[in-house]
């Protein structure tokens, strides 16, 4: 996706802080949804990096922790709606895993907005746009993440 590159280009001259957000997108639904958003020329802030995974169930909670460690300000895990998983059941495991992990991260003191999980199908280009826009706005309002982050 080209959104990653845009972020750097648009930072023209001024060094204002811009949030970096990682989106784990399932190949079959959310990635297609993001593609549709692009094809439909739907605008969304260029702060996200999309990482394509075969299934939302592929996302190990360690990936999320590592993302915060390496300086991401927010993480979104997104996959197919229940019932639509390409592998039939992957996202049902995702759902249990991240219901729990989200609570655990919050218990550790991570702000709830910084880690989110959504179902976005291949036909939901507008939902992708809306979720990402809202996520970026929320995180912009909160400022950079300093928690669980490698010292710079």
């Amino acid at each position, binding site marked *: 996706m080209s959104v990653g590159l845009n972020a750097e280009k648009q930072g023209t001259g001024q060094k204002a802080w811009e949030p970096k957000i990682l989106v784990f997108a399932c190949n079959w639904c959310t990635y297609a949804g993001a593609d549709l958003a692009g094809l439909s020329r739907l605008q969304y802030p260029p702060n996200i990096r999309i990482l394509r995974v075969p299934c939302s169930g592929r996302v190990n909670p360690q990936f999320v922790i590592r993302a915060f460690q390496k300086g991401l300000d927010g993480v979104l895990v997104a996959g197919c709606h229940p019932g639509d998983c390409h592998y039939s059941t992957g996202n049902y495991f995702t759902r249990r895993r991240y219901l729990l992990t989200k609570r*655990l991260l919050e218990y550790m*003191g991570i702000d709830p907005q910084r880690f989110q999980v959504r179902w976005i199908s291949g036909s939901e280009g507008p939902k992708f746009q809306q979720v990402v826009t809202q996520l970026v706005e929320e995180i912009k309002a909160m400022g950079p993440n300093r928690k669980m982050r490698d010292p710079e």
Partner: protein
Amino acid sequence: MKEITQKMRDTARELLSSGQVALVLGWEKGYPWYKSAPTFIDKVEDVERLVFDEFCHNNLSKYLLDLAAVDGKVALFVKGCDSRGVNRLIQDNQVKREQLYIIGIPCPGLKDPDDAAGKNWGDEINGAVKCQDCRFPNPVVYDLLLGEKVPAVERGRETRELIERLEKMKPDERYEFWAGQFNRCIRCYACRNICPACNCRECVFDRAVPEWLGKANNLVENQFMQLTRAIHVAGRCIECGECERACPVNIPLMALNRKIINDIEELFGEEPAGLDPEKKTPLGRFELDDPEKFM
């Protein structure tokens, strides 16, 4: 407890002399007096070493992982929590039920060895934190039960109160609390080594390639390690409290484990780990109508 000790010795003697088992796992009196260490008995003349007292903390089920090479059956003594550890290992396919002879001891609740340090035998000693709100003092699986079943009694709420206190805090305060705890972690991995839910042959923490966990002992790596451990035992932790007891710097690990157990029970209505060895673990299964709060 003298009575239980006597029964332990008699049972072990019989099992070994009849050749029913090749090895007996139990506890023996250690040093100082408030430690009772795990012991491995394979000769009839050694059964007199066996004891049961209020300092038999170790969950012996963990040692079963090292005993695959033993020819013949292994007998082990289990308290309530330990028995759930045995079920855990059976559930994870690490041991076979047929290889074991399980001798259950209804558990009266143990004493806190840290509080006993500096005191004398017979002095008033606080109960062990892990036993304060034990839900299953009676073994849930056994071939033989020594003594009468005991009721589950709440002796304190230290861990639960800490969790409640943390849940009421703002995210930043909670972060400070846990950062303060994890900053002290010396990464000795005692919490992992003693845990019957941590039974991978090769632990991700020990691997150099890929290096998931850096070797540096700093807050960020410690947090990574602690969260990985907590998530790994999610749905598999049997609440034996051994990790917290083994931690040399007293990190309240049970406030983490127990919180996850609470969440699992609340979200999925799952029963506690280690009761049914046939059932898949909560994160290894799902229901079509699981809650969907945030998606």
